[in-house]
């Protein structure tokens, strides 16, 4: 997904964990579409011809072209959301979060999701350090971490992450260390996917707002 604007400014950050290429269950993350920027540069040339008055936005692109971007980005957003629901990565609780966002709380979803990222990474670190300890036996403590992870994942609609946590908890209840390790690997993998996809969502939304804002400057 290439940005027509400054694409150096925003990059989805990956966790240290790698998405194993050989994992058959791994998602086909769509390759960034190559956007043909040439027509835009042509217009830019026109804009600088003497006598040619063309409203040009701060980004150097003509306003009416950015307006088209807003529609295209909205379509991209919807397509990504549909994909995430279809894959079970998100469920309708995420929509509930979106419904709670309005003019009085315009960043609600990203605020909550950022808290979720922060807490989840702490939990993942705790879980890993528990299991890496050779003398580990405190399955109760692991259960407490997992309950927290299940609760927060459920609250933001992270369905697949939540389901892996539930399976993880079952292994923990049986004091099955090998099972826990496998579950942790899977959990880190699923969390990676979720985080990348949510970053992608936010990126598209950010660009869409920018494009929509420039299209109708009077409404700002």
């Amino acid at each position, binding site marked *: 997904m290439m940005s027509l604007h400054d694409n150096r400014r925003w990059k989805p950050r990956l966790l240290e964990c790698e998405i194993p290429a050989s994992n058959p269950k791994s998602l086909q993350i769509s390759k960034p579409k190559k956007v043909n920027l040439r027509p835009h540069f042509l217009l830019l040339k026109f804009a600088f011809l003497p006598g040619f008055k063309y409203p040009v936005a701060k980004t150097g692109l003509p306003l009416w072209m950015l307006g088209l971007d807003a529609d295209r980005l909205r379509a991209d957003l919807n397509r990504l959301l549909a994909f995430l629901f279809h894959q079970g990565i998100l469920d309708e*609780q995420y929509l*509930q*979060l979106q*419904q*709670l966002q*309005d003019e*009085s*709380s315009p960043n*609600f979803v990203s*605020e*909550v999701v950022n*808290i*979720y990222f922060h*807490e989840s990474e702490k939990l993942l670190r705790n879980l890993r350090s528990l299991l890496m300890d050779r003398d580990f036996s405190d399955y109760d403590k692991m259960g407490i971490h997992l*309950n*927290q992870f*299940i*609760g*927060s994942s*459920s*609250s*933001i*609609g992270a369905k697949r992450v939540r389901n892996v946590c539930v399976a993880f908890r079952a292994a923990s209840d049986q004091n099955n260390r090998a099972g826990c390790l496998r579950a942790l690997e899977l959990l880190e993998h699923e969390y990676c996917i979720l985080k990348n996809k949510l970053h992608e969502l936010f990126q598209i939304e950010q660009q869409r707002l920018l494009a929509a804002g420039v299209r109708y400057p009077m409404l700002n």
Partner: protein
Amino acid sequence: MGNMATQTQFHVLAIDDSLIDRKLIERLLKTSSYQVTAVDSGSKALEFLGLNGENEDEERNSSVESVSAADEDHQVGVNLIITDYCMPGMTGYDLLRKIKQSSSFKDIPVVIMSSENIPSRINRCLEDGAEEFFLKPVKLSDVNKLRPHLMKGITTKNEMQSNTNKRKGSEEIQSPDRTRPRYNELEVV
């Protein structure tokens, strides 16, 4: 604040140890136009209400400018308490019991939330005085169920006020007479 005979907004006290769930319930309640105070433990909730586990009256006299809901006439009153069940230390159930045992706060409706669907737990909470039990994640449709419990509180409060003749003035909501039967108007057949 100040002396308000009627509150223009309902005030809900929310308790949850999870930050995300606190943000969520706060947003849900604010969207429904409630005033919200969110705390992360049962003990903080009791502190806010002015019940610190010691003698109630003693606390009422000694607590000063803290944002206490102890006196419904003057300070910020609490119209509803919504609490998570599973919390470290004091569970939501323990909190429910403490509130129902308190003379000042036993009439405040209490709602319990839980991520686990355990019928025996749900029944126990409802039997011990909880008005509702919500399964998490809590939705807007759940929060809409709170309004009748809050409206009921207004009726009861007005009865108590007119009984004790604390108020003059016409600002209070005139509650319908259905809760106080007037036998002198009926004919005994």
